[in-house]
């Protein structure tokens, strides 16, 4: 009854059942998984708790990553919050996104959202907005369900894996998910949520996956940072009434095709992009010793 594979289907379900967007996503998950509503709500609530814990750990501690390439950047940015050019909320969200990636790279616990490599973006946006605007927990979890349903649409019609679609599939998808969540929190309609997501994914279309030495550190961590800012900017644009000329479902289709056109050297193999420049190769040599 509530099955959906596309954003357009999801929006028409909201209209025909006169149901809010997150509720349709929850109902669909109940149908598909056989879980009851309370259990689904509880699992999401636990995942949100883990997101908050990983942010706190990453901002407070100077974590050293396994590969030694990142760590301590979340804290640096957080301490510079009040003089940030891009404003307090954006900078806080970016600092939190960095925090989660630093926890991840130091073998800490995170929620893959949608992947480990892009795990900072959605928590960064949600937790920064929660703190600066005091949204109730219920509303934040609803925003998380929207992100989940939107990510599911990308997984079905394209991919969420860097090895298959490049970084656009990981950080691009996460940024789209976070843009939709943020749009919902400030009172956007389902159409505005997907409109924000369409702009966010378009902005990162073509982004390659080129991890230095194959590790989830460089450029992954800072790409989480820029993808977080991208999400918030696209939410602002959507709320202001700016329309994406290409609808969300077609942007997903485009992302899928771009991924297929991408050389395997630019899809997580560490053979192209940032992974293939002299500095990266020099590091790779020292690491293997």
């Amino acid at each position, binding site marked *: 009854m509530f099955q959906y594979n596309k954003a357009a289907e999801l929006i028409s379900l909201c209209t025909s059942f006169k149901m809010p967007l997150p509720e349709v996503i929850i109902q669909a998950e109940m149908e598909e*998984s056989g879980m009851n509503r309370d259990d689904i709500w509880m699992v999401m609530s636990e995942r949100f708790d883990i997101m908050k814990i990983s942010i706190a750990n990453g901002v407070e501690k100077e974590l050293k990553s396994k590969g030694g390439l990142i760590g301590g950047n979340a804290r640096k940015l957080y301490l510079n919050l009040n003089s940030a050019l891009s404003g307090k909320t954006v900078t806080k969200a970016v600092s939190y996104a960095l925090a989660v990636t630093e926890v991840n790279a130091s073998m800490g616990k995170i929620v893959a959202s949608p992947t480990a*490599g892009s795990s900072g973006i959605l928590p960064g946006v949600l937790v920064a907005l929660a703190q600066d605007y005091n949204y109730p927990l219920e509303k934040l979890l609803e925003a998380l369900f929207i992100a989940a349903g939107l*990510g599911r649409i990308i997984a079905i019609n394209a991919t969420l894996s860097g090895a298959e679609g490049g970084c656009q599939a990981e950080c691009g998808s996460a940024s789209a998910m976070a843009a939709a969540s943020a749009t919902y929190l400030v009172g956007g309609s389902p159409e505005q949520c997907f409109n924000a997501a369409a702009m966010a994914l378009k902005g990162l279309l073509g982004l390659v996956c080129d991890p230095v030495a194959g590790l989830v550190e460089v450029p992954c961590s800072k790409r989480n940072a820029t993808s977080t800012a991208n999400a918030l900017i696209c939410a602002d644009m959507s709320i202001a009434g700016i329309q994406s000329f290409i609808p969300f479902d077609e942007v997903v289709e485009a992302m899928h095709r771009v991924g297929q056109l991408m050389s395997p050297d630019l899809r997580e193999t560490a053979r192209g992009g940032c992974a293939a420049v002299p500095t990266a190769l020099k590091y790779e040599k020292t690491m293997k010793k």
Partner: protein
Amino acid sequence: MGAGIFDVIGPVMVGPSSSHTAGAVRIGAIANKICGGIPARVDFYLHGSFAETYRGHGTDNALVGGILGMSPSDERLRNSFQYAREQGLDFSFHTIDLGDVHPNTIKIVMHARDGVIHEVIGSSIGGGSVLINSVDNARVEFSGKYPTIFISHEDKPGLIARVTSLFADQGINIAFLKVFRYSRGSDATMLIETDVHIPADLIYAIEKLADIKKVMYIDEIHS
């Protein structure tokens, strides 16, 4: 990746990589179940991308943690070497070329505490999912996502029907059934994956059937 919302917001895992860390824990944890617990000694033979990047991804900590029975979300993984020493587990890492296999493949050789040697070959195929390709030199193919029963038996007619009827009698649905053999009339293996836990009396009943050589039960690995 599945299409459920908790595959998108999830899994909960210890980083940094779903394939090189979470998947490695999972392969180790399956090896632990095949060994029947923590072995006295384990040798890890890493192939391909595992061989090249295992230190930076904590694949080594992940594998040892898995052998100790930890799950992919266990925060003790980072310090698994220390836990291994406390548990008297001796371990070492080697690189190997296993030929034309998935780039993230590993061979694990375990010396159980009773002296028996077990060998497991598995691949981390993405998103934390794994595929076990070989157990004790027998070809297999299972993911560890479901309760799995692994039966080695004589290659004789009617045996599969006798085994599956035992499942039917208990009302247990078989999700996947795979059979393998080396040549006609030789050793064969049967792999059954189910949606629910397989009770001990059913395993016992299979063991008691004629032409069955060995039955191994591998419980599902949680995240």
